[in-house]
């Protein structure tokens, strides 16, 4: 990766196994989810995507950085998220992707600091390379979440699932988000995993590592910026369909760097 600032950091990958791995969801915010299967840490060069001559794009690399200040004054205030931030995300995604309809179905706050996490009932950052949906679970989510008529509309044409990720704390440097250039991750590196809730079993991908993978992060992310992440797309015309990503401990973060506080909003986009 010439001319790019890189940091070397270990990322956690899954080792392919016989049988289907499982993740058992935890509602206890102090605990990480329990995962079956074996994992290994791989030391990788993670390049600062701000240095790329051509900025990454959602349909090409699978992620992009956008400048989009938010009017939200407190991301821990649920009413500001659903009443204000959701609308901002809808407008942003329509503008950036050309989607005709955007449906927001979920958001998650992820906080490193345990006291803050306990206080606000938020979750831990995810330390495993993964993608939020699979070929099978993405259309199922549409059926799970939308009214039949709207689901029909989404499923009858191209639809995509995009996460809007934003750091709203003092700094994102201690535990930032890394994403792989989707063009460098072959489909064999995506391992389908059952994700078990008390009332349903969903499916996500966890990723194996392979040499061709190229990993990026955005240094110095500010609350006025958001990272868009393509987690699924029905389009099979060369556009990105899945994007491997993970949170990671940044060894280059100076001591005393404030812990990460981030929000990700999960969305369904229709292009019909």
């Amino acid at each position, binding site marked *: 990766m010439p001319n790019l600032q890189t940091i070397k950091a270990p990322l956690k990958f899954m080792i392919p196994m016989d049988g289907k791995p499982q993740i058992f969801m*935890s509602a206890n915010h102090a605990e990480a989810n329990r995962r079956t299967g074996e994992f290994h840490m791989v030391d990788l060069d993670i390049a600062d995507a701000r240095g790329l001559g051509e900025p990454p794009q959602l349909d090409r690399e699978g992620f992009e950085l956008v400048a989009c200040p938010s009017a939200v004054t407190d991301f821990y205030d649920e009413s500001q998220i659903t009443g204000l931030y959701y609308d901002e995300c809808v407008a942003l995604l329509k503008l950036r992707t050309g989607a005709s309809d955007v449906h927001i179905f979920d958001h998650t706050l992820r906080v490193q600091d345990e006291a803050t996490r306990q206080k606000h009932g938020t979750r831990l950052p995810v330390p495993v390379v993964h993608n939020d949906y699979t070929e099978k679970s993405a259309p*199922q989510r549409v059926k*799970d979440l939308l009214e039949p008529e709207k689901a029909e509309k989404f499923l009858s044409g191209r639809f995509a699932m995009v996460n809007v990720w934003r750091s709203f704390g003092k700094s994102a440097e201690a535990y930032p988000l890394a994403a792989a250039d989707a063009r460098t991750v072959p489909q064999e590196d995506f391992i389908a995993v059952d994700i078990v809730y008390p*009332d349903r079993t969903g499916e996500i991908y966890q990723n194996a590592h392979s040499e061709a993978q190229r990993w990026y992060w955005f240094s110095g992310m500010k609350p006025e910026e958001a990272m868009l992440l393509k987690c699924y797309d029905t389009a099979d015309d060369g556009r990105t369909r899945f994007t491997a990503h993970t949170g990671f401990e940044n060894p280059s973060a100076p001591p005393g760097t404030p812990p990460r506080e981030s929000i990700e909003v999960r969305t369904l986009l229709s292009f019909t």
Partner: protein
Amino acid sequence: MAAPHPRTFTLTEAEAAAIQSMQLARQTGIARKGPMLRYTSLAAPVIAAVIIWAVDLLWYDGAMSMSLFVTLLAVFVGGMMFQTAGYWLNLQAARKRMLHTTQQVFEPRTVRFVPEGIEVSIPTAATLQKWPGVKDIEMKNGMILVWAGNLLPVSVPLRAFSSEEEAETFLAECRRQMAEAAD
């Protein structure tokens, strides 16, 4: 109002089957189509016959041969039957998939109120249904059902409560929280 105490219970096969079929109905839209779909299915062969009769009158001046009439009718009805069979097969596939992905509904569970929503836990996993995501609350088939989209609802059988008043308190608290989250 004080939050009701946690409830621990195991759904019976009948209760689990009832909520699974309610979820399937929501996902396929059958529940809302209801009688309309049935009447349309019954009326379809009659409508097909009327269309062919109109074609006979307008195109053939009422001289269409019986064999052509029967053939056309068979094509119409056969086509509809084919569509119905396809719909039925799709429904069975959806049902099979849903049964497979909701097996854990038979495990013992605890439902408790937490400030952000309702937490449901089974021995192996747990989840939190946040209040803003709750779309509908109803009492049906001897259960309190808290729906978020078309997923399996948070379901608490009335028998999990020690009294009717306790169940009413639980229901009222769910409705209050949902309304508050919607404001």
